[in-house]
């Protein structure tokens, strides 16, 4: 009887573990299918359809100003919003200290950090108005007025 109880407990534990694993796999699949939390958007008139991580990094570090013949104007969200922190760490690959040091060096080179906007709404409005401007907004804000070129 005692052995049967232990066996039942083991089966329940095993089943529970399998259920949890399935749940995590499902969540992972849903996130992968839905894409990233934030999306880089550009004017729908732009000829660009997608950007590589390296291209995004070079554009936001003001190392390059064009993709092909398209002049690109990167836009940052002002302040320390989690989207900016996530963008800097996962796309630019730099923490805030390293990034600040980078902009000090660029000041000597005559290069300023990207323009900033106060909200996601103003980033989206800027992107719709100024051709070539590129900024990140929550993926839920992407609609037919703008073009998605990168997700993170």
């Amino acid at each position, binding site marked *: 009887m005692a052995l049967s109880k232990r066996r039942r407990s083991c089966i329940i534990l095993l089943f529970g573990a399998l259920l949890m694993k399935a749940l995590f796999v499902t969540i992972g699949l849903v996130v992968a299918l839905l894409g990233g939390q934030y999306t880089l958007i550009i004017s729908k008139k732009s000829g660009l359809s997608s950007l*590589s991580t390296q291209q995004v990094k*070079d554009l936001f570090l003001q190392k390059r*100003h064009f993709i*092909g*013949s398209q002049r690109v104007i990167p836009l940052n969200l002002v302040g320390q919003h989690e989207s900016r922190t996530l963008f800097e760490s996962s796309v630019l690959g730099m923490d805030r200290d390293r990034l600040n*040091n980078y902009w*000090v060096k660029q000041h*000597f080179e*005559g290069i*300023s950090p990207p323009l900033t906007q106060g909200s996601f709404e103003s980033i989206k409005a800027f992107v719709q108005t100024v051709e070539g401007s590129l900024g990140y907004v929550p993926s839920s804000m992407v609609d037919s007025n703008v073009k998605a070129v990168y997700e993170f």
Partner: protein
Amino acid sequence: MRLYALGLSVLLAAALHAQPYALGQGYHVGEGLNVGGYFSSEFEMKGSQETFTLDDVAFMAYGDINPMFSYLAEFESVGFYHKNLSTGDESGDRKFHIERLYGDLWLADAYNIRFGKQITPVGYWNKEPINVLRDSTSSPLYSKLLFPKFLTGIDIHGYVPGIEAAQYHLFGQSNRDFDPGYINIPNTHFFGLAFEKEISNDWSGGGSVGEYITAVGDQRTRFVQANLKYDDSTWQVMGEALIAKSNYTHDSDDYTLSGYAQGMYRYTSQHAFIGRAEHFKDHYTRYEDNIAVVGYSYRPLYPVSLKGEYQWHSQNDEDRALFSFSVLF
């Protein structure tokens, strides 16, 4: 002196109209005007001599006139004030020179043009020549004696099509230097091609070839250069090497070899330890030196730098201790 007054006026006007200021990133007056500057002071102990120098005092302005055109102007005084603390002698050169004056035409990813007086786009060290951006007070001989630090001409540059994160510079000068008294190698002809590649987030490398003819003596020199760097948040290891062949008008050709390897350990974001080994050999003048440098760098903020180092030279009587304080504003 007039430039000095002009620089101060521009800085004052900028301060009154600027956005919130961040030290080391200049006053951002508008897209068309950012202003800033830097200075450095140095204390040297060599043998029985002790000297103090207020070395670089510089003002700079830059901005975007429109999305296709930007500019940069920099005026600098070197050796602004010098005092030999052993003898009490004082001297100084308060004349401001044009350090850089150029415009940028942004045309396409693979093709942009910089024209005017600019830093020669070769290697790492030459592109960050000011004390506050360096991690040691001294610069290797490599960066001072082997090619002109400045170019008064055109640099066509951009990303190499088909190779990710790779850039090229094709530069040329076929005239005298702008402010020739203020360049390490005054020349009348300087052409070169440089290539650099960001291999990963931490690794980069590159190389260049070039040729110049000195303004005095018509000495023609051709050089080949290579550089490699690893840099993460804690360690930085870098090296550069160059071989140059010079044709002398009344003498046979000869070679100069130079290179250095430098390692830096960032104990914290403020404190770092630096070690450098350098070799320099000029077969023509028969000057050869091997230099070892150990140093310490303290940055309470990144644009404020306090550094100390000691140099050992294979040449007699060249050993010295250097201390410096510099700020970029």
